[in-house]
C-alpha cells in the first residue's frame, strides 16, 4: 500500500520541473499535441514492435528534457506491480497463439488446464507497454509545462479566459488542499482516531471526519479569494489585457505536424 506521505512525495516529484530544454521552450499547445499523439498510438496500435518504439520515444523525450528521469522512475516503483499484474492476467487468460507450456490444474481441484501461449505473452506486453506509454508521455507533459504558461497558451488560442483562470485556480489550490488533508489526517491520529479498522461504518466515519474540516476550510478560503478577486477588478466590464501572450513558433508547428504525421503513418501502415 502506498502511504499518504508516499503519494505526497510522488506528487511533488511529478510537478513542473524548471528547465531550459527544447521541450520546456515548446508551446504548451504543442505538448498537448505530442501527448495526444502518444495516447492515440497507445490506444490504436496492436503491434508490439510499434508499441515498444513508441515507448522508447517517450522515454527519450523525458530523458532529453532533463527533468530527473531516474528520480521519477524511483518514485514510480510501485507501478511495476500494477504493470506486472496486468501482464500476468493477459498471459494467464489469453488462449490465442501458439501454446508454449501448460500445466494440469485438475490435480489441485481446478477443473481447467493452464496454458501459456505466444499470443498471451504478446498481448500482456502490449497492454503493459500501453499503460506505461500513457504514463511516461503524461510525465513528459507535466514536468516540462509550467502551469501558468499552459493557461496563458489555452487562453491565447481561444479558450475563454474564465475557463483558463479556473484551471490556474485549481492548480494553485490543489496542492494546498492536499497539504490540508494531510494535516487533518495527522490531527485525527493525534486524537486517537483509528483508521485501520475494517468495515463500511468505519469508512463512513473516517470520510465524515475528513471531509468536514476540509469543506469548512475550503469555504473560508472561497470567501478570502472572492474578496481578493473582486478587490482587483475581476469581472470588470471592458477589454481585458494580458501580461503574457503565447504565439506558436515555426518549431512548434514543425513538431506538432511531424508528430501527427509520424503517428498517423505508423498506425495506418503498421498498426
Amino acid at each position, binding site marked *: 500500500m502506498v502511504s499518504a506521505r508516499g503519494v505526497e512525495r510522488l506528487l511533488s516529484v511529478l510537478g513542473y520541473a524548471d528547465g531550459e530544454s527544447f521541450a520546456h521552450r515548446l508551446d504548451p499547445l504543442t505538448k498537448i499535441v505530442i501527448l495526444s499523439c502518444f495516447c492515440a498510438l497507445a490506444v490504436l496500435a496492436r503491434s508490439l514492435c510499434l508499441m515498444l518504439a513508441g515507448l522508447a520515444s517517450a522515454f527519450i523525450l523525458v530523458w532529453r528534457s532533463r527533468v530527473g528521469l531516474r528520480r521519477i522512475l524511483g518514485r514510480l516503483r510501485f507501478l511495476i506491480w500494477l504493470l506486472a499484474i496486468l501482464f500476468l492476467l493477459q498471459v494467464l487468460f489469453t488462449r490465442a497463439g501458439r501454446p508454449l507450456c501448460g500445466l494440469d490444474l485438475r490435480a489441485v481441484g481446478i477443473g481447467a488446464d493452464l496454458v501459456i501461449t505466444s499470443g498471451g505473452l504478446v498481448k500482456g506486453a502490449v497492454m503493459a507497454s500501453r499503460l506505461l506509454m500513457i504514463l511516461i508521455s503524461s510525465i513528459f507533459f507535466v514536468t516540462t509545462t509550467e502551469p501558468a504558461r499552459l493557461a496563458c497558451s489555452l487562453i491565447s488560442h481561444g479558450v475563454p479566459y474564465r475557463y483558463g483562470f479556473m484551471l490556474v485556480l485549481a492548480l494553485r489550490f490543489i*496542492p494546498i488542499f492536499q497539504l490540508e488533508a494531510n494535516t487533518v489526517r*495527522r490531527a485525527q491520529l493525534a486524537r486517537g482516531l483509528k483508521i485501520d479498522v475494517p468495515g463500511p461504518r468505519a469508512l463512513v466515519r473516517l470520510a465524515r471526519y475528513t471531509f468536514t474540516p476540509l469543506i469548512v476550510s475550503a469555504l473560508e478560503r472561497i470567501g478570502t*479569494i472572492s474578496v*481578493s478577486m*473582486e478587490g*482587483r*477588478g475581476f469581472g*470588470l466590464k471592458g477589454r*481585458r*489585457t494580458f501580461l503574457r501572450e503565447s504565439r506558436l513558433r515555426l518549431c512548434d508547428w514543425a513538431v506538432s505536424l511531424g508528430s501527427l504525421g509520424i503517428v498517423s503513418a505508423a498506425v495506418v501502415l503498421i498498426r
Partner: protein
Amino acid sequence: MIDLEGLSFRYRSCTLPALQNIDLRIADGEIFLIIGESGSGKTTLAKIMAGFLGPGSGEMEGKVLIDGVDVHAVPRQNLVGLVGLVQQDPESQMVTLNVKDELAFGLENMGVGRREMEERISWALESTGSIGLSERQISSLSGGELQKVAISSILALRPKVLILDEPTSSLDPRSAWEIGDVLGRLNSQGVTIVVIEHRYSWIAARASRMAVLSHGSVSALHSCPLIEKTQARSAARRQPPKTLSPDPLLLIEHVSFAYDGTEVLKDVTLDIRRGEMVGLMGDNGSGKTTLLLMIMGMLRPSRGQVKFAGRRVEVTSAIAREVGMVFQNPNHQIFESSINDEILFGPRNFGIPREEADARLSDVAATLGLRDRGESSPHALSLGEKRRLNVASVVVYEPHLYLLDEPFVGQDQGNVDRIMAIVREKVDRGASCLLVTHDPDLASESCDRIAFLKRGRVLVQGPPDHVFSTLDKEDEKWYLPEGWRGS
C-alpha cells in the same frame, strides 16, 4: 479623506449589531491603527470601509466616504484605484501561480497596457522591497514574502487608501517589523494606511493615531506613537518548579530531518521534564512544526531519536493518549457537529469511561468559557472560541505532555490569558508543555526554559534570561521581550 459618518451595521443572521454609530475621520497621509478584542467588529469595519460589505449584506446606516466618494454607491470593481484591502491570510489571497502574474492580475482586469503593466509591477515590488521575488513561484514564498506580495498586488493598482486586516498575525516578529518598514515607505509616498491589529508594537511608532474598538463602537482615540502595553497577564514571571525529576519525559537526541533533500532540522537535542513549560521560538520555516510532528511520531528522523517516557517514539498511536497536540489551524482539527461532541472526540477514541469523560467535559468547558454553548455547532464559533475549543479537546483527556503549535495566532489578550491559565494549571500539577510561540513577552513570563531554532538548528536553549541575553548578542532583536528592547 476617509469619513465614517454615523456608521452602524448588523449582519442579517445576527440580532446584535456588529458596528454601532461610528464617527471617524482619517486624514490624507495618516497611518491609522485600529485595535480591539476578538469579535469587536474590526474585520467588519475593514470590509465596510473597503466596500466589500454594505447595505446588500446586512442592515446598514450611515456612510463611508473616501475622497468624497460614497463607497457603497458605486460597484466594488470601480473602487480599485481608490481603496485596497489586504486580508489576514496572505496565502489564500493569491489567485495565480507566480509573483509577476499575481501583480498583473488586477492590472489585466483593468485593461492596463503591457508596457504600463510592467512599469507598475516593478514599481510596486520595489516599493515593498520585493523586486527579487518577481520570478518566484507563489508556492515557494515564506509567510513574510507572501504578505509583501499581497501588499504589492494591491499597490500595483495605485489605491489612495490601503487597509490591512491583521497583516502580521501569522508572521514571525522579524517579518512583522519588515512589513512595518514597508508600510512606512508607502506612507512616505503618500498612501493613506489603515492597519487593524491585535499586536501592534511593529507599527505603533509609525502610526499617527489609534482607535480602540469595543463591542462595535469606538471606545477611545489615542495619539501615537504608543508603546504596546504588555498587559498584566500574570502578576509575576512563572516560578520554576522546585524539584524536577532526573529522567526527562521527552528526550530529543541529535535529531535531523530532511524534506526531499532539504534539511529542515539539524542535530537538534532537547529535553523536557515533568512539570516544565518549555517555549520553542524561531522564524517561520525554522523547523518548529516539523519538530512537533516528529515528537508525535508523524515524521521519522533521518538521524537521531525521539524518546517519550524512556521509550523510542515509533508510531503516533502508541503515544497519542499521553501526548496531546494542538495544531495551528483551528478548522483542521474540528471533526464533530456539536461543541460537546467535539470535546468528547478524544476521550471516546481513547476509551475513557463515559461518566468520567462527562465530568471532565463539564470542568474544561466551564474553564474555557464554552459550557453554555455545548450543543451549538463548533463551526459557528469565532476564531478565538475555536482556539479555546481546540485546547479543551486536548486538555479533556489529560495527556502528560502538551504540544501547542502557535495557539495564540489572531487571539486577543483575554483569550491568551484563558488558554494559558488552564495550561499552567496542568503544568503545575505535573504535566509538561512545549509551547511554540512568536511572542517573546509570553515566553519570558510563562516558560521555564526556551529553545530558539534558527534554520533548523538550536541556536540557544536555557532559562529565558540566558536565551534573551544570547539573542540580544546575536542581533535577533525582534525576539526580545519589551524589557530587553532598547535596553
